[in-house]
């Protein structure tokens, strides 16, 4: 991503988040049933959405890597960056959900299908990150990780549809028609947009770091080869 585009995305994300905070904390009224706890709603679903989006892109990039025609280390790097950021957002989803759950359900954690599958999703992708630390050639690491990402992604639709498939304490989609409207709907929509921009910025920055690291490794290897060649030349000159 070009520098100015990345910077613009970052600035837009910060402005959007500030506006979401203002709308969520100042403009929108308290809910008739949930009172002020409803304000967590403006960040909790957007965080979950970004986690789904991140794992979705990671799975897509992983499929592209496994497909020989589209195989490149660039898509593998993108998958890694998306999973890293996705895990952060998945954990934040769990934390914000627990904070909301304590006053609403009476407990920080209940063994509900949605909560359990979200926790599983986070753990599955933490496993992906652990797998990436296993040494191997870049292709070996990428292939192993790609298979793990595709297999782990199966949990994402299960997580999303869990509220419909099982009787859960967790409510169904907040965006159902009529469930939310007025300034509350705008705050929520802005939350979705802002967190998506934040995700794009975080992945962009992370991708740059990873690409630079790969370039450095390549350069270091080239320098090492050149140094050995020079050494070889010197040794030939002195007649070793």
């Amino acid at each position, binding site marked *: 991503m070009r520098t100015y585009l990345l910077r613009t995305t970052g600035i837009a994300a910060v402005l959007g988040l500030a506006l979401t905070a203002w709308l969520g904390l100042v403009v929108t009224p308290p809910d008739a049933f949930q009172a002020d706890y409803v304000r967590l709603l403006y960040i909790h679903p957007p965080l979950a959405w970004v986690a789904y989006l991140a794992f979705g892109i990671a799975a897509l990039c992983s499929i592209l890597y496994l497909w020989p025609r589209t195989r490149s280390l660039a898509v593998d790097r993108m998958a890694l960056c998306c999973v890293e950021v996705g895990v952060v957002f998945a954990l934040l989803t769990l934390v914000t959900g627990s904070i909301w759950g304590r006053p609403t359900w009476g407990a920080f954690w209940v063994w509900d299908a949605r909560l*359990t599958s979200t926790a599983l999703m986070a753990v599955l992708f933490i496993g992906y990150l652990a*797998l990436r630390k296993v040494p191997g050639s870049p292709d070996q690491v990428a292939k192993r990780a790609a298979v*793990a990402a*595709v297999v*782990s992604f199966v*949990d994402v639709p299960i997580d999303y549809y869990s509220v419909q498939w099982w009787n859960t304490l967790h409510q169904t989609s907040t965006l159902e028609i009529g469930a939310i409207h007025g300034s509350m709907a705008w705050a929520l929509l802005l939350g979705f947009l802002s967190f998506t921009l934040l995700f794009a910025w975080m992945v962009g920055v992370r991708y740059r770091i990873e690409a630079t690291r790969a370039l450095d490794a390549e350069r270091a290897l080239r320098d090492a080869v050149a140094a050995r060649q020079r050494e070889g030349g010197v040794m030939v000159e002195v007649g070793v």
Partner: protein
Amino acid sequence: MWRDAWAVLVKDLGIEARTRVGLWQVLPFAVLTVVLFAFALGPHHGVLKAAAPGLFWLGVLFTALLLIGRSTTIESGEGVGDAQRLLGIDASGVFCGKAMAIAVELLVVEVLLLLGVMALLSYRPSHLWLVAVAAPLATIGLAGVGTLYGAIAGGARVRETLLPMLVLPVLAPVLIAAVKLFALAQSGPVAKATPWLWVLGVFAVVYTAAGIVLYGQVQETS
């Protein structure tokens, strides 16, 4: 593919029959796990009976980890992968053969463990057919995921610690569904079993298909 799968199945079961690791180490481990869980829960008859389905499947899950580790060790031996590629053995066949071998071993463990749970924890399934349907379905899922992840972690020096971390979260739906079905088989109502049977069935199909498609890619990395 099926001829290769059969050859791998016979080879893996043959190795197990010769070494008898399953009989002398894995099976006692499974029983020990259930007994230790029972110690942890205390001697209350009602508690143990209610917890029996969960204890049974936790025992099976931990035993499956040992069997997957064993199966992976056989395949990651010196030159095994190269020999298979040179002989033109189909990767999907290897996956199916290894998964079937793990499934057969697990089914044997499950039958014996079920007898143990019935004797020690007073587990009494009044709908035995549900147990007979749920256990093989869950076992196919366990074997499919285990074989695939065993190969993923196979080349790693940290396989012993990595494998449980990767496999256990994936197998959580199998654990939940199988425990529910075993509990329903004990105390009903059986009408509630259908969605959980679906979970096990879909899981088994999805992960077996994923294994058949992806195993070749994973094999290249080990």
